[in-house]
């Protein structure tokens, strides 16, 4: 919010902007705090609606409008899964209370529970931009940058992960559910990382990296590592908000989002450069920034609890992450570029950036208290709570565990390999040329873009078709009312006939 003051200075419609942002924050808080499934559904849709309105905030720009509608339709379709699952739960339990459901889920018919589980998975995948719904998030980057940071990195996309985490104890018994979640996470993480490696738009790189990191979280839930997933969620929201805001400062001063026309900004914007590098270190998983700890925890859990092929995918993704992060930083801040006039971020932007940078450096210290908090508030998720996990002592325990785990060193090696590949990339030009078809496919979104566009077009066509029924003619409206009454009477008749 503070950041927006500088970013939007002199733009029109600020009242609309701030009202929507506050509405969104309220809905998000409600979504997370509510123990009522129906309220969750309602808040879920409100966040989707706010996100749509804010993406299309520059409503003169057709790209922004298209991106907004895409986000609305895709997340709305996912919401159908959530709604259907909730209604099925209500039909079975007779209440929307989440704890009641969790307590009585064992009595559900397995098939119904599977349907509910996969409905929720669809909702979460759509909301968190996971495979195969991942393409809406990069298009949502037409939004003002503070919105991208707030909604599309820090809060809304995490709602899907949150949903999965919250219900994971119930659905983990469903055959195939955990594996599907794990596969969705791994595939999203990998695909998004490759796309981030070829994108040239700074915000799109960040968006794909968001999808990739969310894939990590979903993967962790699939592996049953709820704490690791939630901890990565915390780290990610801090460092990704930092990255987005820093990117916003860059874009604001350079006036373009194309990384090819940036470069050499490290001397012009030293502060922004510094915080961006901190965020990048976290994204790439390099110690001692918070992203390192949480990501290593996820990988450790994946190695011990998940299937081995998924672990390999995640390892490759880690390397790719390091690669594209380095590429991004280099292109923006260090690439040779012609001289041009840019200005450092404004004071309000700095006020927002510095605490986030500090947060990226230190939030991993909270691991112990965070784990204790989760164990206290979510007893169903952690049946065997460790008694001595709490405070800084817990953090040290976790940290030493991470540092001694073999997976950490493997991952660090892969990170180094990825970074190395980027720095000595010239000998690999030949390979790069041979990989060009892959690269083109990645730029085209591997065809999923086409699927999502098809869905969108279908929904819009349906809307247009339905619009013709809204003739606005009073007499036809009355006719429709009469038809509805006839339908109700028929239903009454049938029910009465059945009742005797």
């Amino acid at each position: 919010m503070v950041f927006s003051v500088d970013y939007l200075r002199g733009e029109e419609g600020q009242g609309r902007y701030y009202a929507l942002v506050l509405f969104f924050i309220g809905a998000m808080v409600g979504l997370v705090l509510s123990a009522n499934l129906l309220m969750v559904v309602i808040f879920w849709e409100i966040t989707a609606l706010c996100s749509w309105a804010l993406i299309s905030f520059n409503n003169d720009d057709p790209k922004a409008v298209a991106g907004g509608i895409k986000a609305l339709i895709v997340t709305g379709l996912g919401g159908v899964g959530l709604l259907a699952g909730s209604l099925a739960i209500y039909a079975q339990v007779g209440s929307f209370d989440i704890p009641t459901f969790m307590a009585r889920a064992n009595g559900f018919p397995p098939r119904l529970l599977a349907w509910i589980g996969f409905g929720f998975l669809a909702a979460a995948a759509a909301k968190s931009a996971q495979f195969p719904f991942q393409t809406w998030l990069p298009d949502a980057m037409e939004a003002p940058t503070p919105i991208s940071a707030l909604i599309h990195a820090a809060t809304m996309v995490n709602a899907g992960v949150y949903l999965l985490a919250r219900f994971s104890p119930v659905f983990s018994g469903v055959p195939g559910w955990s594996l599907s979640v794990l596969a969705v996470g791994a595939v999203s993480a990998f695909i998004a990382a490759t796309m981030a490696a070829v994108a040239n738009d700074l915000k799109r790189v960040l968006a794909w990296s968001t999808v990739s990191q969310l894939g990590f979280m979903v993967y962790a839930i699939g592996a049953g590592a709820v704490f690791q997933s939630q901890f990565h969620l915390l780290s990610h929201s801090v460092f990704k908000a930092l990255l987005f805001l820093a990117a916003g400062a860059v874009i604001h001063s350079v006036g373009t989002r194309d990384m090819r026309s940036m470069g050499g900004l490290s001397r012009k914007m030293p502060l922004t450069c510094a915080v961006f590098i901190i965020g990048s270190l976290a994204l790439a998983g390099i110690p001692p920034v918070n992203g390192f700890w949480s990501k290593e925890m996820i990988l450790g859990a994946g190695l011990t609890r998940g299937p081995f092929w998924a672990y390999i995918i995640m390892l490759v993704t880690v390397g790719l992450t390091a690669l594209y992060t380095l590429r991004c930083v280099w292109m923006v801040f260090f690439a040779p570029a012609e001289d041009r006039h840019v200005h450092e971020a404004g004071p309000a932007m700095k006020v927002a950036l510095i605490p986030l940078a500090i947060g990226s450096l230190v939030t991993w210290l909270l691991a112990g208290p965070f784990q204790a908090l989760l164990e206290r508030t979510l007893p169903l998720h952690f049946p065997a709570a460790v008694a001595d996990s709490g405070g800084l002592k817990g953090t040290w325990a976790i940290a030493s565990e991470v540092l001694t785990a073999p997976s950490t060193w493997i991952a660090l090696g892969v990170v180094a390999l990825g970074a190395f590949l980027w720095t000595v990339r010239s000998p690999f030009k030949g390979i790069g040329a041979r990989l060009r078809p892959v690269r083109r496919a990645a730029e085209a979104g591997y065809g999923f873009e086409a699927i999502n566009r098809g869905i969108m077009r279908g929904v819009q066509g349906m809307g247009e078709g339905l619009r013709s029924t809204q003739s606005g003619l009073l007499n036809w409206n009355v006719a429709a009312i009469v038809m509805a009454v006839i339908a109700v009477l028929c239903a009454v008749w049938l029910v009465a006939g059945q009742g005797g």
Partner: protein
Amino acid sequence: MMGAVPNFPEWIDGVRHWREPYSTLRSDARKYPRKEGFCMVIQTLVLSATLICALQAIRAPRLLVSALWLAGCSALLAFSIALLGAPEVGVVELSVGAGLVTVIFVFAISVAGEETIGLTSVVPRPVAWALIGIFLFLLAWLTLPGLVSPALPRDALPFLRALWDERSLDTVLQVALIFSGVLGSLGLLAERSDSGHTPPKAGGERAST
């Protein structure tokens, strides 16, 4: 049900008990139940006249005439309701339905003005007839069995008590409704099309239909 409201003023109980149908027409209804045929004929006539008035109100080409037919329909219906043993409702219907509403209609027509509009309907007539046919069939099918079954034991709750006590929430809401209706219509009527916007003319389209 009656015992639930012991401290209700005694005088209300004395005001009005349930009457038989046609008891307003004959004072000896209880003594000669067989003589209902005459009343039945009267009721049939009144209700037929009501229906005719309603039909004429729809068919009349001029709005003012239509409003007057509606007033007639309302008055006849009020009479028929009184015949059925509910004179209070009849009186309210007569004063409000036939009186107030007619005045408002005449006022609205004088403000809006007469306008001859073609008879070509938007909804095709066969569709309209089909809808009404299905609707009536279902309604009749669902309600008639209730009529054939013997009358249920009568609940001797006095009318005014029902209105003011059992359904007091309704009554309070009605008052609120009247206020909001008055305020709303006043607000609507006060809003004039000034502010430099000229209402679009639709005369050509009207002539063609």
